[in-house]
């Protein structure tokens, strides 16, 4: 009984430590993780704590607040940068079939690729637009909370050993060219064609604290909001609603939904499997 009580106190204490750390990060660095979903947040914090060889969240707080480099590493951990080119090929098939025809009717297309991380999704979208003949009249605004990953996205070089998987994804995503024609292998890296970023603007944007900055025809935000708690998800849905023109398209991840969001009734699903929604009013 005594140990059980201790364990319980231990858990509560950890909650306090996490809240204090997040409060400290917000006040010192301006990054606001307080509305993130607690389960994965705790996992990422402990991942960083172990990486920094400290044994408690309080000890991690000491490191994070006094050493910006530790904060930078934590930021990388918290912005889950595991992604791949043409992730979920069926999404790209649906995008070609349902969104591209709408885009053809516009004189100019503005796309917001939210949470672009190291750029795999952005380059995938650029390739798709190129093959559909829409790239020249498009501009992709690719944003992420983290400057370090944006710098890598701007370079557009991905590990060569991934190309086999990416090629397979690309073909299943409805790709019509030789995938290898889009990159040049050099050592361990595949450098993607510079023209693929001619129409891309990579910029830092924080969904939690920053406001709308443009009005878009298409917003692609896949597997980003899964890391947010419900209240924060509502805020971001509001931001997307403001940032989409009428009849604009919102693309979410396979297991995400606008269900239960306050803006639900403003959208019509144009592909409910692939989570493609159209803003109706």
């Amino acid at each position, binding site marked *: 009984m005594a140990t*059980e009580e201790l*364990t319980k106190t231990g*858990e509560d204490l950890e909650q306090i430590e996490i809240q204090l750390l997040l409060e400290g990060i917000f006040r010192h660095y301006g990054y606001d993780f307080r509305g993130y*979903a*607690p*389960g*994965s947040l*705790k*996992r*990422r914090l402990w991942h960083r704590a172990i990486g920094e060889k400290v044994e408690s969240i309080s000890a991690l707080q000491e490191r994070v607040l006094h050493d910006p480099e530790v904060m930078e590493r934590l930021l990388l951990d918290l912005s*889950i940068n*595991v*992604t791949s080119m043409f992730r*979920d090929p069926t999404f790209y098939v649906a995008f070609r079939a349902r969104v591209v025809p709408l885009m053809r009717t516009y004189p100019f297309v503005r796309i917001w690729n939210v949470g672009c991380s190291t750029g795999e999704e952005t380059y995938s979208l650029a390739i798709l637009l190129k093959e559909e003949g829409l790239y020249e009249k498009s501009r992709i605004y690719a944003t992420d909370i983290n400057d370090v990953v944006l710098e890598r996205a701007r370079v557009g070089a991905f590990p060569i050993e991934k190309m086999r998987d990416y090629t397979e994804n690309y073909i299943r995503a409805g790709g019509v060219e030789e995938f290898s024609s889009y990159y040049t292998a050099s050592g361990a890296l595949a450098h993607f064609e510079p023209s693929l970023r001619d129409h891309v603007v990579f910029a830092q944007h924080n969904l939690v604290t920053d406001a709308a900055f443009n009005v878009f025809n298409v917003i692609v935000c896949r*597997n980003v*909001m*899964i*890391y947010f708690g*419900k209240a924060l*998800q509502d805020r971001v849905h509001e931001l997307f609603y403001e940032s989409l023109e009428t009849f604009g398209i919102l693309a979410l*991840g*396979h*297991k*995400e*939904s606008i269900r*239960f969001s306050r803006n639900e009734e403003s959208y019509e699903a144009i592909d409910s*499997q692939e989570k493609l929604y159209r803003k109706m009013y």
Partner: protein
Amino acid sequence: MTRFRNNGLMAYELVAMGGSWGGLAAYDRILPALPKDFPAAIVVVQHRAVDSHRGALTSYLQNRTALSVEEIGDKDPVVPGRVHLAPPDYHTIVEHGHFALSTEAAVHHSRPSIDVTFQTAADAYGERLIGVILTGANEDGAAGIAAISRNGGVTIAQNPETADKPTMPRAAIATGAVQRVAELDEIGPLLVELCGAGSPNTRSAA
């Protein structure tokens, strides 16, 4: 049930079940034993290919149980008497009263990882949780079983001697945290015994 720590003082609200190689045949033996008014929620984490045919596992499970089966979407609520299936290519994280998904790196080459679901469920549900580790050819789930036990939950492993692939239950048992080793056919009735059978009405009738 004195061997389990909870002693029936607190109802079990969630059963977390993890399977890998051979898992499908295992659910075929476990799920039919659960009555329509089974009072706890169930989360099933089955290792499977990224491109596994959409909905196939959901219907496979649905054909074997009176409970409703649903593949988990982000922030879906944990519903009593429902079988929640972890989707492919995401980790399923359990929070208080709902699920959250994550695309962080694979654990034990697996996404979904049983460890991730078990560990987060242990955090959120503590002694109201039952963890069941089934057949499989890797060691995913062992750390999760240890976490469930540490947080006061019940831990059950399929008998590795009779399992299709013994590695996974064996790894869980090796942590010293498994409270009950059971044959497949015993697991369903054991869950019913632990959780009670549904509403007060059906209980008094039984």
